[in-house]
């Protein structure tokens, strides 16, 4: 869990220019971390590469918070 969260955090901080402290499990990519729709697409690509998995467009649309990403990754790897 902590390992996945740390890796997700690192990507989010790098891609969205967010402060690490802001990247909590509850944080919404769009509402709290300032991501627009293209940022989210790019983020999903990064996560796919980082965790070697494929996230379908349908699934990607449902993921809105950091916690949802972490859960998704844990249940798919």
């Amino acid at each position, binding site marked *: 869990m902590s390992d996945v969260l740390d890796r997700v955090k690192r990507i989010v901080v790098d891609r*969205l*220019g967010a402060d690490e402290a802001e990247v909590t499990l509850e944080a919404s990519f769009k509402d709290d971390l300032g991501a627009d729709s*293209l940022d989210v*697409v*790019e983020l999903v*690509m990064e996560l796919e*590469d980082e965790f070697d998995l494929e996230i379908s467009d349908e699934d990607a649309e449902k993921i809105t918070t950091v916690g949802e990403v972490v859960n998704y990754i844990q249940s798919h790897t």
Partner: protein
Amino acid sequence: MKHRVVVTGMGVVTALGKDLDTFWNNITNGKSGVSHIESFDVSEYPTQIAASVKDFNPEDYIDRKEARKMDRFVQFAVTAASSALRDSGLNIAEDTDPERVGVMIGSGIGGLGTWEDQHNILLQKGPKRVSPFFIPMMIANMASGHVSILFGAKGPNSTAVTACATGTHSIGDSYKLIQRGDADVMICGGAEATIRPTGLAGFCSMRAMSTRNDEPEKASRPFDSGRDGFVMGEGSGVLILESLEHAQKRGAKIYAEVIGYGLSGDAHHMTEPDPNGPERCMKMAIRDAGIDPNEIDYINAHGTSTPVGDRSETIAIKRALGDHAYKVAISSTKSMTGHLLGAAGGVEGVICGLTLQNGVIAPTINLDNPDPECDLDYVPDEARQCDVQVAMSNSFGFGGHNATIILKKFEA
């Protein structure tokens, strides 16, 4: 009613300086910005030199998250526009109606580096790994787009894409927008960042660039008999144009007045110049300015240092100015800055503004043995003190696009 248009702010990013003072000091001291290309391995390229902008860290000027989504040419444009706005003292949100402030910062080529990077990803990793930012980063209009977003400029917004004439068209078109009352302020100029493998290879294949690799500082030598092509530069030049009423109302400092604009098409060949086009372009600008050709004191030439281009421009100047061609001071500052392609007109517009302001003409360096067919006064090697009243700037681009602007010392 025609509004008078003045230059109230300027900014540059070039190999010879990222601020006006350093830049002006270097070009009036005849310094070359050309050096060996270090940003990638050039060992297989016939041309291995360029006027690269070194030590440019976009995060010094732009928020990191935003900078990541900008091609290098946009980063240059935003940096130059930001400097120009600061120089003008104009705060768009507080001092004026944002809907009367426009942007026209063109690029000859656009995001070539982004294109290369993403094409490599496409080949190596497949289509699903191409960045969602590829298209918005690459398109040539994004300098105008980003600058408007960052500074809240909601007025006329567009982009000229006329190869090496881009910067001058951007300034000229902006001047006309203000003159006819469609805007009070225009942020205008050009930006380019093509010192990349495909950019270098493409111009090499055209045999358009100098191969004087062992003497980079002597490679750009406009009007000299030993010239063998242009040297690529990169960067941006941006001017703040403003209606005279608007500038005076806020007590702005005024560098110069823009008084004329001409543009034409050679209708001749993709890349070979025809002096008729530039001749008509200069004549149109002179007519637009309502001056006599004899009143022109200085021409900042297109002068790229290609064998045919410099000869063609010399012929065109003689036809446009008649006998006065032999009296006017002409220089090609590309001998120092390299050829910034779509940004050249922006940078050279800034140089004309500084020339009028300071009464000094920057030289054409490396003019050791003038080409017998280039027999005008190109202000060789040393800057010249001269109380320039009227300055003209020429830019000509592939496709046969020509643009000329005329600036005058401001008198109320």
